[in-house]
Structure formats: C-alpha cells, structure tokens
C-alpha cells in the first residue's frame, strides 16, 4: 500500500514538474541559440539598426524594424479593444438587466474561441477591402486592418477580466454611492472603476501581452515586409510573423538566418515576460491592500 502511494505521488510530481522543465527548457534554448547569434551580430547593431533583412544578400539585423511592426499592430488593437471592452464591462456590471448578461457572456466567449487563423482571413478578405472603400490608398497587406481585427479578438479579454474586477468591488460601495444620490454613470466612473482600477489595469496589460504574441492575424493580413515605420497603411512585419516566415521556409539549421528567429523569439519573450510580471506585481500589491 505504502509503495503504491509513493508511486502515485511520484507520478503526480512528474506531471507537475513538466511545466517547470518546459519553461526552463524553452528559456535555455532561446538563450543558447541567441548567444550563438550574438557572436556573429553585435547587440549594438541588433538594437539600433532600423533594417531587418537577414534573408537578403545584403544582411541587416535591426530588430527595431520588427518591434515597430509589433508595436503598431498591438497599439491599434488596444485602441480598439480598450474602449469597447471597458464599455462592455461597465454596461454588464452597472446597466444591463439580469437576463442580458446571460445572453452576452456566451457571445463574448464565442468571440474568444474563434481560431485566430479565421480572424486573419477575415481581416484580409473582409476588413481590408472595406477599409479600401474608405481609404483607397490602403495596401492589401497593412497593419491597420490586422490591428483592428486583433482588437476585436482581444475584446473578451478586457471585458471579461474587467467585469470580474468590477464584480469584486464590495457591493456596499455601490450602495453607498447610490445612497449619496449618484447616478449610475457617476457610480460607475467615480466609484466602481477607480475601486477596480488595479484589476482593470491587469486586464489591459494581459491584453497587450496577448496582442504582442499574436501571430496568425498579422502573418496573414499585415504582410511580410519588415519596415521601420509607424504608417498603418503599408505592409509591415511583426516579430511573430517573421518567426513564422523563417520557420516555414528553408533556412538551414545552424545557419545565421536560422538563429535570427531565436534572437527575435528572445526579444518577444522579454516583452511578454515583463508585462506579465508587471500585472502579477500589481495584482499582488493591490490584493493585499484590499484584504
């Protein structure tokens, strides 16, 4: 009996440790290949050059060209998702009749369950042609359309997490605000949102993190041309879509082209890791304060 218990415990431990080993393994591979990359390319060039052309005959390794593309699509996505997501959260928490919340929530969950490749296709074949009717100079591949669709994709992140944060505000505060003669609008914006601000900020940071890591939409709809630009109407390339391009191409293993994806991957990882750490820190700090 005792031996059996021990074996079960061991198996459970192994399963639990798989996640830890995977994380450590990924970081190790990223670091190892990146170090080998930086033996050939100086970190200075990597961080300051504005061209990214590892696959051309005249090679440049300026990550800024990919970072600007990532920044551009993510910024557009947040600009779309934040106001809509937050409005939905406030509406659900303060205004909606009880039944409506039950109807809307599944729709938001469906939005979150659509495969991103479908979103990408939607951006390319529906949103871009539509935007071209308004702004004819818009190119077929552009960050505007990809960013907008990515924004729609991350609305559920913001609305659902923000609504949880609003829901967690003690009901007594809402009653206090109403008791003082506040309208629902005043209660929402002067009491509820400030009281839930830490949770709302966390939801925004996680949404940014998601946008930065998003791959399929930008790979399909934003183009494959690394350009150091903030112009949303022309093709760009994000860190993620570059990795897709090289991974699905025929860069020989061990070559410099091949190693670039690890350097790019490490950059991406540092961004998302930093953002997730910040959100973790905010969550922890303010949770303690409330209890």
């Amino acid at each position, binding site marked *: 009996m005792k031996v059996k218990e021990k074996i079960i415990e061991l198996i459970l431990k192994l399963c639990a440790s798989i996640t830890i080993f995977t994380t450590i393994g990924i970081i190790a591979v990223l670091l190892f290949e990146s170090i080998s990359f930086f033996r050939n390319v100086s970190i200075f060039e990597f961080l300051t050059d504005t061209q990214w052309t590892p696959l051309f005959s005249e090679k440049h390794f300026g990550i800024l060209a990919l970072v600007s593309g990532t920044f551009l699509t993510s910024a557009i996505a947040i600009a779309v998702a934040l106001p809509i997501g937050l409005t939905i959260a406030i509406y659900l928490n303060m205004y909606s009749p*009880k039944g409506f919340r039950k109807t809307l929530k599944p729709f938001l969950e469906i939005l979150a369950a659509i495969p991103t490749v479908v979103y990408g296709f939607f951006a390319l074949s529906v949103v871009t042609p539509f935007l071209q009717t308004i702004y004819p100079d818009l190119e077929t591949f552009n960050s505007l359309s990809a960013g907008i669709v990515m924004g729609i994709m991350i609305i559920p992140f913001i609305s659902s997490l923000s609504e949880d944060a609003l829901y967690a505000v*003690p009901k*007594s*505060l809402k*009653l*206090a*605000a*109403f*008791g*003082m*003669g*506040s*309208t629902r609008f*005043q209660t929402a914006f*002067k*009491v509820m949102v*400030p*009281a839930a601000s830490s949770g709302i900020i966390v939801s925004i940071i996680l949404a940014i993190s998601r946008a930065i890591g998003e791959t399929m939409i930008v790979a399909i709809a934003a183009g494959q041309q690394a350009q150091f630009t903030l112009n949303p109407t022309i093709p760009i390339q994000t860190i993620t879509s570059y990795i897709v391009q090289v991974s699905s191409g025929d860069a020989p293993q061990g070559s410099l082209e091949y190693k670039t994806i690890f350097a790019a991957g490490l950059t991406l990882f540092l961004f998302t890791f930093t953002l997730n750490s910040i959100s973790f820190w905010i969550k922890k700090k303010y949770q303690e*304060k409330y209890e």
Partner: protein
Amino acid sequence: MSAIMTVKTDETKTETSTSEKYKLHAKNVSVFYGDFLAINNISMNIKPKSITAFIGPSGCGKSTFLRLFNRMNDYVDDFKMEGKIKIDDANIYGKKTQVEELRKEVGMVFQKPNPFPKSIFENVAYGLKIQGIKDKELIAQRVEKALVQADLWNEVKDNLNKSALALSGGQQQRLCIARTLAVEPSILLMDEPTSALDPISTAKIEELIYQLKQDYTIIIVTHNMQQASRISDYTAFFYMGELIEFDKTKKIFTNPEKKQTENYITGRFG
C-alpha cells in the same frame, strides 16, 4: 350646501396641519418581494427633528421599511410597493420624483462602515462633487463643517489626504456620517450603524446622533434595546412585517400596550 362646504374646508385644514406637523408620512404601505409580503399595510407619521428607533427581530421588515424612505429597495429584484410615502408633502414614489435628488435630501448610513477607497477629504467631498460643485473653498468649508459635526475633525484634520481605509472601524463610520452630512440632507436613515463597532465607538456615535437631532430628522434601525431607549424619542416595534406598536419611547419601554412588545423588549423572544 353651505354645511357641506364647511366640512370640506375643515378636511383641507386638517390635512395641511398634518403635513406641517410631520416630516415623513407613510400611509397604508405594503411591500412585496415577488409573492412574499414583507411589509403589511403600515401607516406612520414621523415628526421633524426627532429620533425614531425601529426595533424588532431579524426579518421583521424594519430595514425594508427604512429603505423605503430613500428608495434603496428599488435595487432589489421583484420589489413592489403599495401605498403612499410623503416627505414634506411630496410623494416620493410619484412619477416626477428624481431619485438622485431625493437621496440628497434623505441621507443614509449603513450597517457596516463603507467609505470609498479614496482619501478622507475625497470621501466627504464626494457628494458635493457629484452635484457639480467646483468651488474649492466652498468644498473645503463644507468638508470641515461635516467632519466637525461628525466629531471626527480633531482626529483627522492633519491627515485629510490619508486613505479612509486606514481609519479604525468607528472612525470610518463617523466618516460615513460626515460624508452624508456634507450634502446637507434633512433626514438621516441609519441602518444598525453601530452593530459592527466596539462599545466605545458605539457610545461616541450615539452621542453624535443625539446631537444631530437638533437639525435632522433621524430614523435608526437597531437590535440594541438600550440604544433605542437611550437615544430615541419614538420607538416602532415591527414583527413579521406588521407595525405592532409605535409610541413615545418612554411609553414603549415602561408601559407598552401590546403583550408582544413587552415580550420583545424584555428579551423573552426575538
């Protein structure tokens, strides 16, 4: 003919004098939550600048009745009311009633202290700011006045920018009273305001309530018999949604008309 006229005039006269005498006026009020009858046909008149205590066992309807006066029951699902409630002669359940305006006239203090997660100053200034008052000097004056009235000024005057959540429970409750007073209502509803507090804080708040009587009409729901007898002028005893007895506090506590009242205040049930 003339006789009828006289009678009519008399009636009008009586009504006018009634409304002059009473601040709050409830007539044949019943409340339902779905099918459940929470308040059964209660009528009550409350004089201005008096303290009325609502007593009775849990679930007797006293809190529900209290919350009718600032329409806080409106947020309860399936809430339905019959009858009439008037404040200063105005029907507060009429179609023209602006609930926000009503609540500036009828302040409320809750069972558990519920300050906003803002500074002490911002808590008291809140009601003024949502009314659109922008004059900083006026706001500062009213905040100080309210904190003095709530007997909290001396304890917090040097820390007005400190978070209200850092105050003790008793201080938080006095802050909530100050927050309510800052908008200068004429009626204060208090729903067991001391039940979450220690005896010393309770004594302070009782003294405060007693002083506020000079300017405000106060209704307090309490489970504490001594509290009711110490501070109130009138006491209403509720049981199972009915108003069993409503009279001068002295009468209720020394010589109640009904056996049920006597049993409750002497602790034989409830």
